[in-house]
């Protein structure tokens, strides 16, 4: 058990080695399947060839498709291919890269099956025993007085040790040895060809398009990471949402409000770095069913651009209409450290007390609500006059000139 756990740990350490691990496991499974499979040549002229060749060809196709099924990246590739453009353009090179890497990994198990089958020789013997050229063995065919059909039938029985009755015509061992030898030659040739192909692709590729390759590798890894992070964030959000929803429900029933505790207790801790995100912070401002639905819908239909806001920029709603529900911060508390913790270097002061939040859903979407909250105390002289418009865009309200902001940085750093 311990061994398995360790192997699992090693393989999961990063995505690439996990995929390689799956690939290796499938290759081993394919070899094991072959050895445990009981090959059963029919030894009848009409069916030998189809049985032999299908044993050679159909399991590889099956393993190839299985490789696609087991690979997590297939759904990622399909998603990236089919999504609407949104605010992020699509890069066909990235999709090609993902497709190629998935196919490469899925091709290993079929290759193992084919090479093991050819090395073993049974299916080749079954398929081609009737095409044996007797003159190789120095036998004169017509000397035995057999018709063509009877000869074929005798030759077809070569793969079956126990029912072969043509020993006086042709030694079974000699014939099977001959065909096995050809089959093994094909097997080694097949291995040589795919190794040379893999070598050319991997070792010679840097000579061409190395810079473009670095780019596509980065962005395909990014797409994968982003999907995972999104799923994690949604899970965290759901947890926070559920917790607060339940709390609200209980409070609604009991009539008491006791939610000031968890946002103020952080004052005591000096250690800012390890303060865990409260549930409110995990919500990131998304508090309702339809908003969350919009989040999930837009994630596919209108993916955000690959541009991160710099720390001092105003948050302008970029995803179409943002309904502004401004609520006043009644207790007028100082913009204390708890508010500054999360977000972009403490600039976010959009924290709303959960006590007031209960009322928020009752307010509904009131676009004309002109009161806004500035949690910033009077220290800064850059108050904004937020004009809320019907559409909900904050148009240049916070003039955040880069210059003063940069100066703040400069002042800060020179004092270090």
């Amino acid at each position, binding site marked *: 058990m311990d061994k398995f756990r360790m192997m699992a740990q090693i393989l999961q350490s990063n995505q690439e080695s996990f995929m390689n691990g799956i690939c290796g496991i499938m290759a081993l499974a394919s070899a094991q399947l072959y050895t445990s499979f009981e090959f059963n040549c029919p030894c009848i002229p009409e069916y030998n060839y189809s049985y032999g060749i299908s044993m050679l060809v159909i399991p590889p196709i099956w393993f190839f498709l299985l490789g696609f099924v087991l690979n997590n990246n297939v759904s990622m590739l399909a998603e990236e291919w089919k999504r609407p453009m949104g605010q992020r353009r699509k890069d066909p090179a990235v999709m090609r890269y993902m497709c190629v890497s998935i196919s490469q990994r899925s091709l290993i198990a079929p290759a193992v099956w084919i090479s093991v089958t050819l090395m073993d020789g049974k299916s080749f013997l079954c398929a081609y025993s009737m095409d044996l050229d007797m003159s190789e063995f120095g036998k004169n065919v017509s000397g035995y007085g057999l018709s063509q059909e009877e000869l074929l039938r005798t030759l077809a029985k070569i793969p079956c040790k126990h029912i072969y009755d043509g020993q006086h015509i042709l030694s079974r061992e000699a014939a099977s040895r001959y065909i096995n030898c050809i089959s*093994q030659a094909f097997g080694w040739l097949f291995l040589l060809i795919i190794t040379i192909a893999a070598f050319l692709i*991997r070792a010679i590729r*840097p000579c061409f398009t190395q*810079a473009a390759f670095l780019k596509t590798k*980065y962005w395909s890894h990014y797409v994968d990471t982003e999907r995972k*992070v999104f799923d994690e964030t949604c899970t965290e959000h759901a947890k926070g949402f559920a917790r607060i929803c339940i709390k609200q429900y209980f409070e609604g029933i009991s009539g008491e409000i006791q939610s000031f505790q968890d946002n103020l207790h952080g004052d005591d801790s000096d250690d800012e770095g390890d303060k865990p995100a409260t549930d409110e912070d995990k919500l990131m401002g998304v508090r309702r069913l339809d908003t969350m639905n919009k989040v999930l819908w837009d994630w596919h239909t209108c993916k955000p651009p690959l541009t991160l806001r710099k720390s001092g920029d105003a948050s302008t709603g970029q995803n179409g209409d943002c309904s502004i529900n401004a609520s006043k911060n009644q207790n007028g508390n100082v913009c204390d450290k708890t508010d500054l913790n*999360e977000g972009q270097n403490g600039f976010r*002061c959009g924290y709303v007390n959960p006590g007031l939040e209960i009322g928020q859903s009752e307010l509904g979407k009131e676009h004309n609500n002109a009161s806004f909250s500035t949690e910033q105390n009077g220290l800064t002289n850059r108050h904004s006059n937020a004009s809320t418009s019907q559409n909900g865009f904050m148009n240049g309200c916070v003039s955040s000139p880069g210059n003063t902001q940069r100066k703040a940085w400069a002042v800060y750093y020179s004092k270090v």
Partner: protein
Amino acid sequence: MDRLKLVLQYFQSNSESISNGICIILSLISVKLYTSFDFNCPCLPQYNKMYALGVMFVPPIILFLLGVLVNRHTGVLMEEWVRPLGKRTKNPAVVKFLLSSVFQRSLLAPMVWILMTLLDGKCFICAFSMNVDPKYFTGIPNSTGLELIKIMAKVPCKEDVIFKNSSFRKAVSRYVRCYSQAIGWSILLFFIFLGAVGRVLKPCFNHATFLQTRYWSNYLDIEQKLFDETCVLHARDFARKCVVQFFENMREDVTVRMPLSSALRLSTIHNEYEEEEEEHLHGITRQDQVDHLLQTWYECKPELDVTRMAYKPKVCITWEDINGKAMFSEV
């Protein structure tokens, strides 16, 4: 269990030992492949030699190519060889060093295969049984009416009927196997001797240059690994920020973001986690910036000079007496 962990840890400690580990694994695979391979001599005069020599030489080629493929240094080598000059000159000695190390490691598994075939003897018997002069051996079955060469070609096949009651087959096999093993052992001895002489005499030639090339080839390997790791970390933080930003854009209440005045800023204690994240981004926050970064990494590799980052100038105050002699200095 602990032993396995220790072994794995040792092998992952640096990239040289990873390559050695892979090389050894490939040789073990080659041994296993040989033992599980069902050698099937056709026992026909026209095909014996072809089959046997094929089995002796085609798998080594495959194993060699596999060894080159699987080796990490191949990628480093090719990249260093074909990259544009950029701001960093190319050192051909490093490329040659990497090439020779890749070749040396990849040659181990093929040699193991060839030695195994020679020491086992089956291939040799299959290939050269027809070249044996049968008059040195008694008991040749000449009653079957077959030509001599056909009889000799059947020697590798044990179960053939013509050798039922004679010791001729065994005698010829033993003779050929003895040749095969002699050749195998001498090849092994030759290579070990060559290796020993090479190791002993290497420091006599250009040791200082060798130290330099070894350092820089190791450096290239580490640099590439670190670049990949940095890209991975960057991608993760980029993704996280992108997703959080996406959620926050759907906010329902108004958020007023204003730049903090310097007074407040100084008293703000930075969240360590945030700082770490920002650090991973290194200021690269847009798609075109990332693209430009990756393009430049290949096309215009930076120079090997980290003075600017490693050494920040420090202000040093020195108190001197009237004669100008330094009495006390403080950084």
